[in-house]
């Protein structure tokens, strides 16, 4: 073959290869490569959305946001010198640049800066490539928000785990406790995006190559509590170190008060974190839903229902109290050393006679007691939408696995001692169930939540007997809270004095009102404050007085 011919064929082969390749690049892979070309120069960063506001039931702002500043840059354009100058101005960076996989995107170097800090930075820092200073909305809380801190919760920077789970970025805030956590997806809002065009060296070409996507603020939330009442509760607790108040509407489930002492200030949670964690009083614990305490005499309400259900007890059953109850070779003392004499069920509730309920328990028997409680199918949590609620411990087979159960155990259970541990919120639910003749709406923290109902279907007369006893706790002269009687307030209640191995008794008081048409439940717990009638009951009365007064 002549070389000319071969060269001509070779020419066509080469051109053919080129055209096939060009077809591949410019037609088949065009879409993909166009995106890659765009990625090359178009950089994007997230504009965080302001969190939704949190209001109390009267529209008072508890949590809102304020603008601060943050600085961002693309790590691959930063020289060591740039990083050093940022560090000398602001200290350590928010993010460890060495651990980043992707160094071609914006990351947040420092957040929550004030205007003054930013101005100083701009004056002192040399020209840093790809640097962006932008506003950042930061959560702020009102002065009074601390009185409801356990309900409101707090926000802080998302952990590695949360970043992966919720597809967040370093430096994003997330609710960590309270409704900030449980309603985080509502409150968080939708972040926007801002676009920048940079060349391959990190020089800004265009600061608005595409219209930015505006962030959408999170939804506002109205809690059902009244911050005034929370603050008032705090004033009633000034002589006590630790305690809790929980109250809710048994018809709608709306929580009217959720107070736990000691509390924390959600505003400076990050700076005071160590202090809060190391505080032996454990201010981060929500005592309403996480504090487990022996219920003491308040549990007698359930004991009465169990007894009535077992048919070993009726309204007219009478036992004699001599001041002590003997079972086996042990004696349980009544709180009244001289004894209550002969009592019926209603007076036994009103006067909180231990011996009477020891008798009720002994007649039901340990196994039967557990069996009946099992049949009641009581929820072990109130399911209130606040993270971290503790499960109560009541005499159920599942819960007491691995513990010694003796025939005498029921003697302790009947008066709310022994293994039994409950939370103030759960005890409120039991009071609510009794007040509503078995029907009670589970507590909720905002109006919009779906109502969840619980029904303990027992004969109405059982409830009426127990409620009559509770009425007499207050209205009878012999009642444990009789000295506080106020005809204006139609309260039915039960006091409790819970023995505990760690010091003085816990003081309990749980009540519902009004008597004739029960609507609200309030439970007060004061840790290590002695008799229920002495510490918890007056606080509850003051709260009801104020609550009813404000309603009218």
């Amino acid at each position, binding site marked *: 073959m002549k*070389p*000319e011919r071969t*060269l*001509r064929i*070779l*020419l066509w082969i*080469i*051109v053919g*290869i*080129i*055209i096939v*390749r*060009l*077809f591949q*690049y*410019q*037609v088949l*892979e*065009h879409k*993909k*490569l*166009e995106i*890659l*070309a*765009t990625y*090359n*120069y178009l950089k994007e960063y997230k504009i965080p959305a302001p969190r939704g506001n949190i209001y109390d039931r009267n529209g008072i702002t508890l949590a809102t946001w304020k603008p601060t500043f943050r600085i961002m840059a693309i790590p691959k354009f930063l020289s060591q010198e740039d990083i050093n100058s940022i560090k000398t101005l602001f200290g350590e960076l928010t993010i460890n640049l060495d651990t980043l996989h992707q160094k071609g995107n914006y990351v947040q170097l420092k957040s929550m800066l004030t205007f003054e800090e930013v101005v100083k930075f701009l004056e002192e820092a040399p020209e840093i490539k790809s640097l962006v200073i932008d506003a950042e909305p930061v959560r702020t809380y009102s002065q009074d928000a601390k009185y409801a801190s356990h309900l409101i919760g707090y926000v802080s920077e998302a952990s590695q785990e949360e970043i992966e789970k919720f597809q967040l970025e370093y430096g994003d805030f997330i609710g960590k406790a309270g409704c900030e956590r449980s309603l985080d997806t509502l409150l968080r809002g939708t972040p926007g995006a801002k676009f920048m*065009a*940079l*060349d*391959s*060296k990190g020089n800004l*070409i265009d600061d608005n190559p595409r219209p930015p996507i505006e962030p959408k603020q999170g939804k506002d939330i109205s809690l059902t509590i009244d911050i005034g009442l929370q603050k008032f509760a705090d004033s009633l607790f000034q002589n006590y170190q630790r305690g809790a108040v929980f109250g809710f509407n048994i018809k709608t489930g709306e929580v009217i008060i959720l107070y736990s002492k000691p509390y924390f200030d959600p505003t400076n949670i990050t700076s005071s974190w160590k202090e809060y964690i190391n505080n032996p009083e454990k201010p981060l614990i929500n005592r309403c839903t996480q504090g487990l305490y022996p219920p003491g005499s308040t549990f007698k309400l359930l004991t009465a229902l169990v007894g009535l259900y077992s048919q070993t007890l009726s309204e007219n059953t009478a036992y004699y109290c001599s001041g002590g109850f003997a079972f086996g070779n042990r004696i349980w003392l009544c709180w009244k050393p001289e004894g209550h004499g002969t009592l019926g069920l209603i007076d036994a509730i009103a006067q909180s006679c231990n011996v009477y309920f020891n008798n009720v328990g002994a007649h039901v028997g340990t196994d039967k007691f557990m069996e009946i409680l099992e049949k009641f199918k009581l929820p072990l949590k109130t399911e209130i939408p606040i993270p971290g609620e503790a499960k109560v411990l009541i005499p159920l087979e599942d819960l007491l696995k691995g513990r010694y159960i003796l025939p005498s155990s029921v003697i302790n259970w009947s008066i709310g001692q022994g293994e039994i541990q409950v939370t103030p919120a759960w005890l409120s639910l039991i009071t609510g169930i009794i007040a509503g003749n078995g029907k009670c709406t589970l507590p909720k923290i905002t109006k919009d939540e779906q109502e969840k109902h619980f029904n303990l279907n027992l004969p109405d007369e059982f409830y009426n007997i127990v409620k009559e006893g509770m009425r007499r706790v207050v209205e009878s002269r012999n009642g444990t809270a009789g000295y506080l009687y106020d005809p204006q307030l139609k309260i039915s209640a039960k006091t409790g004095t819970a023995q505990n191995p760690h010091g003085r008794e816990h003081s309990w008081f749980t009540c519902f009102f009004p008597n004739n048409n029960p609507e609200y439940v309030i439970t007060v717990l004061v840790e290590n404050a002695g008799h229920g009638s002495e510490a918890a009951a007056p606080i509850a009365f003051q709260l009801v007085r104020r609550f009813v007064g404000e309603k009218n």
Partner: protein
Amino acid sequence: MKRIRNGLIIPPLILISLGLVELFFINRGLFLSQLSKVIIYSLLLAGFYFLIKKPYILNYGSIIYYISIPLLIATLLFGKGGVSRWIGVGALTFQPSELTKLGLIFVLGKTLSDTKKTIKTKLTKALIYTLIPFILVMLQPDLGTALTLLIIAFITIWVYGVDPMLIRLAILIPIAMLTSAHIVSTIIFYIMLLSLLIILKEPIYKKILTIGILTLTSLSTPIVWQKMLKPYQRDRLTAFLNPEKSLNKEGWQIYQAKIAMGSGGIIGKGPGKGTQKGLAFLPAAHTDFIFSSFGEEFGLLGLIVILFTFIIFFRTILRTLELKEGNEKLIVSGIFAYFFIHFTFNILSNLSLLPVVGIPLPFLSFGGSHLLTEMASILTLLKLEV
């Protein structure tokens, strides 16, 4: 005759104009610099065209070769920049290796067409003429130019007409080197080689010689590759196979070139709208990668215009080649080889089909040395037509 003259003048003019258009949108300074070179060189060469007669070119063209060799040595001694490819006086810099290519073409033409010498002497001389500049540019080091010199010599010798075995070996040796990368490809290569040799009617000693040389190549290549090349050198040579994964400069370049052309699509982003070259993601957009840069802004259609202009140009040279004899034919084939290698290497490396070796795209790439050589080559072709 007129058709040939037009075919030699118009396509280069179109290509130079397209190059200038792209340079205009890359950088006005580069555009003006290149435009002034085009004008100065045109005037200069037009003067030559009217002053010098055809026999002079045939007889004294090889002077270019003898001037360029000392210049190449000077480059090695007083070169500018990291790689010693340029020499300069003041602000003027020049790349003598470009001139060497044209010089070699004249020398080879003259040597091989000498009727007084035996074939063996002529081939030996041609080989020495090629190897001297080859070694000098390899020392720079400039692999692209060295390869170009070799292929120019190969095509010229082939057109001159030698034993087909030599041609066959010249083609088969690179294939043997490539296939030695893997045992399977090596086996396939030898099966095909044996069947080829069985079909061919040739003396047995030539067949044995062919097999011997190729086996030696296949065996030595992996050793050279493993023992004599440093890892980064290997990476540079293989970057084009997998540009997305290569983190070195070559890998980045061809990856960005792919993105540039691909994002241009069929009709391109429009003049001056290329983000790859405009925002400096595509390095050397004005020199080695002007093809990609043009493709980003003018798309597949623009590139096809370039390709077909080149085809018309190459076909014209091949037409001339058919009509020529002796020295003239050899010079034409050398010039064809020169353009064709630059065209192929540049575009195929833009398309990540060959490693990037720093060869400009004829007429389009920014730069004076190659433009002057290209224009001088065209002047030679035109002169041969007179």
